[in-house]
């Protein structure tokens, strides 16, 4: 305790009183040599990340999607090192954004009031997410993230789900019509699945498989064909 008090005095500069002098450099090696526990390959580590995944299937027949359907996440990751080989951790996605560009087929026909051949149609899920993962590191490394494989479980809650349609109009005094439907009664707000990552320092390949369905039963409707469950993409650690 006395040592801690001494170090606090050193760090706060109370140890020495200088009279009207300008301190241009001041270092306290005694405090610097206290064991560190926060760092990329130390006991605790926190960093933010950006992730951009593309939907790659499989989807039910009738729920075809266009290329460009993707998910974007921005979040913060905490990693707790248990051994050089094994760590556990959790992610909190502040922003989790999934965007499905729909083909004009049975799904599109069913969720629209009228059958149309729209120029663009999207289902957008905006929310936040949580993930718990196991990390297996391999290869020798210093105080860096190094090479790793993660396997985990994730869950997302979508507080804003919308269905967006856009089309060109020829026979009206306006050229484009856009329609956004909200508070959709046929979508699930909660989704969950399993995740996997392979990474080297900040560069990560991310793979996800959604176990939950995007759609729920809605009175008078046939069961909606399910959207793609796999997504694969890149993640960049911001550190």
């Amino acid at each position, binding site marked *: 305790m006395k040592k801690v008090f*001494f170090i606090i*005095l*050193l760090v706060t500069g109370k*140890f*020495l*009183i*200088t*009279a*009207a*002098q*300008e*301190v*241009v*450099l*001041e*270092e*306290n*090696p*005694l405090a*610097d*040599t206290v064991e*560190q526990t926060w*760092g*990329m*390959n*130390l006991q605790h580590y926190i960093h933010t990340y950006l992730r951009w995944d593309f939907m790659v299937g499989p989807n039910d027949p009738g729920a075809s999607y266009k290329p460009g359907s993707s998910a974007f996440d921005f979040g913060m990751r905490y990693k707790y090192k248990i051994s050089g080989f094994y760590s556990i951790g959790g992610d909190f996605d502040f922003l989790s954004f999934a965007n499905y560009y729909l083909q004009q087929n049975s799904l599109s026909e069913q969720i629209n009031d009228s059958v149309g051949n729209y120029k663009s149609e999207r289902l957008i899920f905006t929310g936040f997410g949580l993930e718990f993962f196991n990390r*297996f590191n*391999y*290869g*020798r*490394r*210093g*105080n*860096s993230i190094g*090479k790793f*494989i993660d*396997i985990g479980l994730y869950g997302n809650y979508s507080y804003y789900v919308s269905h967006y349609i856009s089309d060109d109009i020829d026979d009206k005094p306006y050229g484009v019509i856009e329609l956004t439907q909200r508070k959709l009664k046929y979508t699930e707000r909660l989704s969950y699945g*399993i995740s*996997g990552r*392979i990474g080297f*320092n900040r560069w990560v390949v991310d*793979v996800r*498989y959604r*176990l*939950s*369905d995007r759609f*729920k039963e809605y009175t008078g409707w046939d069961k909606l064909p399910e959207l793609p*469950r796999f997504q694969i993409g890149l993640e960049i650690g911001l550190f």
Partner: protein
Amino acid sequence: MFNITDHFSRTLYFILFQILICIFSLRLSGQNNYWVFLKDKHRCEFDPYKYFDSKALERRVINNIPLFDSSDFPVNQDYVSLITGLVEKADFQSRWFNAIAVDAYPDQICLVSELPFVREVQLCETSGNNLCNVSTDTDIFENFPELLDEQISSMQGEFFSKGGITGKGVRIAVFDAGFPDVDTHKAFRHLRENGRIIKTHDFVKNRENVYSKGMHGRMVLSCITGLYDGKKIGLATDAEFLLARTEHTLIEPFSEEKNWLAAAEWADKNGAQIINSSLGYYYHRYFNDQMNGKSSLVARAATMAARKGILVVTAMGNEGDGNWKFLVTPADADSVLSVGGINPNTRHHISFSSYGPTSDKRMKPNVSAFGVAVVASSDSLEISQGTSFSTPLVCGFAACVLQIHPEYSNMKLLEEVEKSGTLYPYFDYAHGFGIPQAGYFTGGKKQNNDTSLEISLSNDSLFIKINPGLIRTDSLSYLYYHIRNRQGFIEKYAVLKVNNENVLQIPVDLLKNDEVVMVHYLGYSKEITLKDFN
């Protein structure tokens, strides 16, 4: 909700997919670089007169190193043949460490490790950017010609120049990422015309040509020996050079430390008296607590080079204002001259220069020099910054000292360069002993432990007062002080800009009886303990 059977099978596929990726990536990563250390050098023949350059023999005589040292014997070629047959590729053979670098899969390396003559197998792997320069930034010092003059005069280089001391006859090995334009640039014309580039080797590509790739080497070399339109960029304009490319430029795969060791053995063989290494390895490969001069291969190689009588001058690193903060390896090696950076404007520690001490609490840096310097650009000159350039400035200085005192052993040379520092005998973990001064060797500098500092004890405080007549109003008059414990470890240090005579007051109840307070002001140093007042 989901169909459990359907999802179970999909989850199973996902996990299988993950396992396949794991196996694939582990297999890809499975081939690694290893060091295979051998137990003995039985039946190895060695003739130092055939193996070593005459300068290497001369250096051994000066440093009292036996010519027949088993660490110079070649690696047993029977062992090499057996190991080569078991691995993917056998690479460099280290005489110093009696070891072979190999590329092998884990199953292959298991077989190798079971051979009766194998002492140990170590994985050598990693990545990271290791050049100790930071981006070119002219804001910090805009006056280009003045900086060029100052980087020489800050070491009192004019004393060497007046005495015709130019590092003549001293052989310097420079390890870097390549030396583009050194074969054409006019700052190196004097080297080419006088045949002072003795040998070159690219240890990355295993070829002679080093005049391509990373420009860092060109900039570093210019700070040792550059001469541009008659103006010195570095002090050792007549030294001889061995140029070795040891570093990759953009990516850093697995081999730089191995290349460093190979280049050091090559430099030893070819008679280098000084090695300049503006390189360093840190968080990609190591933790702070491994900066102890023993953990990294490159630190052990640098120590071995020092045992062979070579002065290794190396950069402290540019992590002073980063998360790492402390020195990089091999600056942590015990017997090397580690160089920190000085801000040319303020004349004290430049923020990016890494701090000491080593993790086992040895003092580093040893000395400092300008961390912003004029260097050779592709066709003229430019300003760049980093301890990469402090290091060659000191390297050129050391070469000049060795020309004056060819009888100096490498450790004597190291000690004398330290003693010539502006702060000596004061030291701290940001500046070491300060900037080396040529006057110490030519009679121009006088150390004077005068009565300019008065230390008194009253009212339970230690008061440090400066003689009012010595208070300078210019911006470069600083008071340095440290408090160190009985083991010699500095617990606190600081630099103060002096505005009046009463500089410092230390409450005695916070000082232990045997702790030393050391103070330095304008060339005067004093140290005191509370015991002195008892």
